[in-house]
Each structure stands twice: as structure tokens, then as C-alpha cells.
């Protein structure tokens, strides 16, 4: 990243209002009913039904070709649905007035590189019906927020990929939208920048914004989203809130002080399954068991417990488990054939 740019700010001055509609959390701002999209004989979406509530950070996961981007484009009126229904902010999708209340960062966006950062936002702001005074106030603030103020009068062609991504976020937020669609928002952004974007999204959520994220970076999604949907081949195959989806599976990781041996045989005698996991020991609970007898055993032996965590299922685990349980992804058969036997 260029030296004259700054990181994304995590404090003010982001935005003014929380919501112009005054809707409460739990109120749906986006919903689809049995949404179907066909491209000729190809069914890109096969009856997708989902609801996103106000104030949520909602993640849309899926392999390539799962239909995530198609779904977002339908919500924005860029692609037309074939059958079913979809509403955004209480209006049918594509309604022009609604689009003034929506921010969008597409995947693989390509800004006209004859613009400067400032002139691009000014152009998009004009199309979004922002008054000139509002643009003049908002654009420098937004560019400062994403760390591009120092480069705002440079042509976009001189920006790095990460800077373009930051600019994309700025254009999605500049008009203080109620709903924000972000397709791969951290694509090309360095780890520090990603952390800043996460913080920014949390602040937007605190302000009551609804955020819809498409991403392949499951770790990012896990850290940001309240709720996720996993799609495969145009269908929702799993959905739920993050806490439920990544709940405990009854595994604990235990670590002892250096040079102390874990009494694995004795723990097994108590009826637990034990396995080594690096420097730790993984203890699996069966139905009705708790970890307390194991801890009592270790203390009774005078061993010093240095590490004890309940092992939760990561989103990545869940994703892989879910998509493999469902039909394989589009590239899988080819990939398998190429693997050495």
C-alpha cells in the first residue's frame, strides 16, 4: 500500500443516521420467496427463500457457481428473476427509489480508471441523487474513512488492488445506505486492512445498517456475520445464526504444564475418547458426559492445567462438511481425476 494512504478509520466520522425507515431489528428488509432464475436451460437459482432482518450482518456462502452473485444481482435489479418473488426495503426488487437506499460493492468491480477517487464518488453520488453539498461533504469523509483521502485526486489507474477495494467500500457507503451488499469486500486487502474493514462493518451494524456479505473467506465471515446461508447449485442447503451453526460438538482441548504427562489411559478408563492434537489432548465427550471428571482426575494427580477450551466447530468445518454432504461442487469431479492415485 502506498505510503500516503492511511488505514480505514475505526472511529467517527461514519454516518449520521441509523435508519431513515426507523425499522427495528428483527424487521425484514430483504426477503425472497421461492426465487428461481434460469439462464436458458441452466437453473442458477432453484427456489431460494430467505429473509434478512434489519441490523443483521448476513453472510452468503457457497462454492463457485452456487448462485450467490446471481442472488445479489437479482436483489439489486441487475439480473431479472424468472419466477418467485423478492422484496427489498418493502418494495419489489429493482425499484429505483429503493436503490438510493442501497449500497453495493460488486465482486471484480472495475471502476472507470479515467476518474480520480474523488471524481468517481462524485459521479456515483450524482447518480444516487445526492445533492452537491452532500457530496462535497461526504466524499472527503468517506475517502478519509477508507484511508484514501491523500490519494483522492489521483487517477484510479494509479491505485493498488487494495486501494481500489477501499474505494469500492467508500462508494458503497457514501450515501449512507440502509442496506449494504458487499461481494468479497476484503478481496485484495491486506490483513491490517481486513481488520479495519471488519471494525467498520461492526460500526455500521451498530448504526442499524443491514449488511449482506458474499465471501469465500470463511474466517472473515465467521468473525463478522450474525447469520449465514450456505448455497450449493442454486439451493440453500443450510442456514442459521452463527452461534448455533458453530456450536460445541463436545470436544475439549487440554494442555498441561511442561514436562507433565497426560494420563490418557486413565481418562479412557473413565469412558472418554482421547486423541493427541499437537501439544494438546483432545477429549471427546459422549452423550450425557461432562468434562468435570477429567479435570478432577488431573487435579487429583497434582497436574497443572494450563489450557482448557471447548472446541467449537469452525465455519470452515461446517462449510466443508455441509457442501460435501450435499452434492459435490462443479469442479470436484475434474479435481478428483487429476489427483494422483
Amino acid at each position, binding site marked *: 500500500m502506498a505510503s500516503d494512504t492511511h488505514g480505514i478509520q475505526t472511529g467517527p466520522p461514519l454516518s449520521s443516521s441509523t435508519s431513515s425507515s426507523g425499522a427495528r431489528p428483527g424487521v425484514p428488509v430483504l426477503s425472497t420467496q421461492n426465487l428461481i432464475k434460469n*439462464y436458458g436451460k441452466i437453473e442458477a437459482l432453484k427456489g431460494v427463500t430467505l429473509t434478512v432482518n434489519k441490523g443483521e450482518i448476513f453472510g452468503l456462502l457457497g462454492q463457485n457457481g452456487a448462485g450467490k452473485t446471481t442472488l445479489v444481482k437479482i436483489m439489486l435489479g*441487475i439480473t431479472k428473476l424468472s419466477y418467485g418473488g423478492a422484496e427489498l426495503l418493502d418494495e419489489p426488487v429493482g425499484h429505483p427509489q429503493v436503490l438510493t437506499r442501497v449500497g453495493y460493492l460488486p*465482486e471484480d*468491480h472495475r471502476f*472507470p480508471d479515467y476518474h480520480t477517487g474523488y471524481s468517481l464518488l462524485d459521479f456515483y453520488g450524482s447518480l444516487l441523487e445526492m445533492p452537491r453539498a452532500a457530496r462535497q461533504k461526504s466524499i472527503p469523509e468517506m475517502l478519509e474513512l477508507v484511508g484514501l483521502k491523500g490519494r483522492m485526486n489521483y487517477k484510479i489507474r494509479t491505485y493498488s488492488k487494495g486501494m481500489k477495494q477501499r474505494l469500492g467500500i467508500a462508494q458503497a457507503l457514501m450515501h449512507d445506505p440502509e442496506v449494504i451488499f458487499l461481494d468479497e469486500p476484503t478481496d485484495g486487502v491486506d490483513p491490517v486492512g481486513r481488520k479495519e474493514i471488519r471494525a467498520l462493518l461492526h460500526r455500521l451494524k451498530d448504526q442499524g445498517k443491514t449488511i449482506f456479505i458474499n465471501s469465500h473467506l470463511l474466517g472473515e465471515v465467521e468473525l463478522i456475520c450474525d447469520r449465514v446461508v450456505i448455497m450449493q447449485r442454486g439451493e440453500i442447503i443450510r442456514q442459521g445464526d452463527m452461534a448455533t451453526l458453530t456450536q460445541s460438538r463436545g470436544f475439549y482441548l487440554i494442555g498441561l504444564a511442561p514436562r507433565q504427562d497426560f494420563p490418557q489411559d486413565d481418562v479412557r478408563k473413565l469412558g472418554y475418547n482421547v486423541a493427541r492434537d499437537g501439544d494438546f489432548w483432545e477429549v471427546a465427550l459422549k452423550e450425557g458426559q461432562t468434562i468435570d471428571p477429567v479435570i478432577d482426575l488431573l487435579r487429583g494427580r497434582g497436574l497443572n492445567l494450563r489450557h482448557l477450551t471447548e472446541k467449537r466447530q469452525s465455519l470452515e468445518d461446517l462449510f466443508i462438511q455441509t457442501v460435501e454432504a450435499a452434492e459435490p461442487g462443479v469442479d470436484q469431479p475434474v479435481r478428483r481425476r487429476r489427483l494422483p492415485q
Partner: protein
Amino acid sequence: MRSLTQYVLKFFAILKDSLQETLDSKVLYAMFVLSGLAILAAASIGFEPKSGEKGVEAILRRFPGGKANPFIGAEAPLKYELQDFKQTDEKKPWDGDYRFTIVVREQTLPGPDGKPQSAKGMFRLMIYASSLEMDEDKMTDDDRQARKRMIQLQRDAARGQNEKVEEFMKKIEQEVNAVTPAQMERFISNQLAAQGTMVPKTVHYAPSGSDTARFEVETLPRAETIRTWPHKMTLGFGSYTWSEDTPIGSEVFLIEDVVIGGFGAGVAMLLASVVTSFYIPNMLRKGTVDLLLAKPIPRWLLLLYKYVGGLLFMFLNTIVVVVGIWLVLSLRSGLWAPGFLLSIFVLTFQFSIFYAVSTAVGVTTRSPIVCILAACFAWAILFAVGWSYRVVDGIRELDLLPQALVKTADTAHLILPRYKDLDVLSGNVTARDLLGPDSPERKAMDKSYNKTGWGQTLGITIAYIVVLLGFSCWWFTTKDY
């Protein structure tokens, strides 16, 4: 209903975006430089009026038969001599009242066998021939009949019916010999009006030798006399003499209509087609179009605004070059021809045809190269059809071409946009300001103009543009991106 103001603001936002795209490509600057050079070249043109006597002498040399044809090595068969010249006032040469004598001498020239051959009877032949080319409303019944016979003669000659031709030539000879002094005086009067835009106050035929005719003449000026007044024209700030005694209006017309309106317009059309061919495909690139379609503006309006942005590019260029050249030529020549400024709109309108083609191809293929090829192809087709139609129409009366060819040219001209007709229309408007009202060029242009008509030309051309843009908007609106 969204407020009109919002649509206007979005329109200007897209125009500004198109302008930024154009400025970024640097081609606009290149075109401005080219325009600047063209304006500089025009500014280097100088005009120097001939004195009264020299001017009238030069006007007489324009009379039929008075000028040698260097292209075929033929010397002038007639010599129109100026004698007893007198300017009866003290005004500028083209505003002068004149009294003079014209002596017409039939020359002795080398014949096909190299031996001297008299051009006896040539003056009467010229009078007879010119009577056939007069305006219909100025013709006598005899003139009309003679004209019909001449057309038949041309047809027979073209079909190789030599017997009829020989028989007719004898009749012509009789008619030529029967030319009266009144017809001679009418001829001189008409020529003074046509070639010099002078008002012949009196023209008296005075009999002299068998190969000589004398006319005592008095003339008055007209407001338009300057247009045909002989001027010396120089290029490169006087470093090169282009012509010695040509009508200044014709020279300015040549520059404005032929050089700028013809050649320059063709180059501008090509360059503008190349530059603007990128507008629509660039807008439709994946990752770019998504951002625009997610904005609260109808797709068809977005496309139309982008289209107008392309036209603006041509319009700006045309304004620079046309206004610049018009201004410097007007200052240098003293002839102010505001009609030429109409070509700003005509050229932009002509470009709107090709840009509509480019837009339709752009939304369907998203390829700038295909857009350029399509626009150039459309230009070539319309140019060829327009030019062919003019040729066919010009010799229609002679009935020489196969009917199938004539019908094809007529049909193609009828159903396609009238690109070349627009040239005729704008050329005529310029000609009205620059050419002598009775000059042969002006009459030819008027004839072509009267056949054309703005209504049908604009109607059919606009219909094409509407259909092409309608298709483009429909495609863009119904397509998934």
C-alpha cells in the same frame, strides 16, 4: 414520479463522465490540435480583389468558350475582349457602375490535322447551347422545343444511331445560324449576371465583321457582386498563389463545403467513430455495468444519456473547427456566410446515424472493434448509396442506364438514411451565402436541393436513429448483467 431535476442532474453527471473519458483518451486534444492546424491553414489564405477593369476582363473570360481547357489541351475558341472600359463612380471594384464594350472574336485554332481551322459560328453555337440550359421559367417555347430535340440527340448519339445524329446536326446548324441579335444580347446579359453577378443596365449589339460581334454594355452592381468578383487567392500567408482571378465566393465555398464539409467531415466522422466506439462497451464491462445498474436510473435512460455524451464529443469538435474556420475565412475574405455554421448541426446529425449503429452493435457485442467496423461499414454503404443515387439521378433524363439499376439506386436511396442528402442540404445553405445567385454552380446546387427536401431526408434518417436506439434500449433493458 421522480423529479425532472434529478434526471437533468444525472444527465449532466453522465455527460461529465463521458467528457472525462474522452479527455482521458487524449484523442480530443489530438483532434483539437488538428482543428487548430486546419484553422491556421485557413487563416493563411489571402484574397486580393482585382481592379475594376481587370475584374471585368476576368469575368468575360468565364463566358462560354472564353476559357482554354488545359486538361485536353484545347485553346479557347472565343475571345471576349474588353474595350472602352469606364467606371462611372468611385466605389470599390465590385460596387462599381461600369460602361464598356465587349468584342467577341471567333479564333482560328489548330484543327485535328494540325492545320489552322476557324471557329466560325462558335459564338452562335454557344448562344444556342446556353439557351438550352436556361431556367425553365425563362425559356421561350422555341427554347423548350430545342431543348427536347437536344436531349433526343444525346440519346440517339449514345445509342449509336448515326443517321439520326447526322440529320439532326444539320438541323442544329440551321438553328445556330438563325440566332438573332436579341438572343445575342440576352446571352451577354445572362452571362454578366451569371458570371459576374452584375445587373446589365443596357446591352446593345453592334454589327461588325463576320467573325466578330460587338456589344456596348452598361452595368450596375448587386449586393452579391462581391461573391463572384475576381480575386487573387494565395496560400501560406501569400507564399503561394492558388488562383489569379477566380470568384472569391466560389473559393470560400470550395474550402467550407468541399474541404471542410466533405473531406474534413469524413475524417472527423471516422475519428469520432473510433473514439466513441469505446463508450458503450466500456460501460458494459463486467464490474462496471453492475455499479451503474445498481443506481436509481432507468437503463434505457442511462444508454440514451451515454449516446448523447458521444454526440457531444462530435458536437464540440465540430464547433471548434467549423466556427474557427468560418471566423478566419470570413475575416480574411470579407464574406460572412452564417449558413456554414449550420454544418455544425448537420455533421453532428450525420454522426448520430453512425453512432446509433455503433451503439446498437455495442450493446449486443460489447466489442469496440466491432463497433468501429460497423460504423465504418455503415458510412461506406450510405456514402456509396448516396453517391450512386446522385449519379443515376443526374443522367436519369437521358434514359441510358438499365431500369433495374435505376430502380435499385432509387430504392436504396428511399429506404436508407439520407447521409449524402444532408450534405446537399447543408451545402446549399452555404452556397446561398457564397455563390452568385445566377451562377451555374448555384443553379446546379439549387436543382439538387429542390429534388431533396428536408422533410423526407430528416424524417427517414430520424426514423432510423429511433429504431436503432429503440432496439439498443430494449436489448439493454431486458438483458441480464
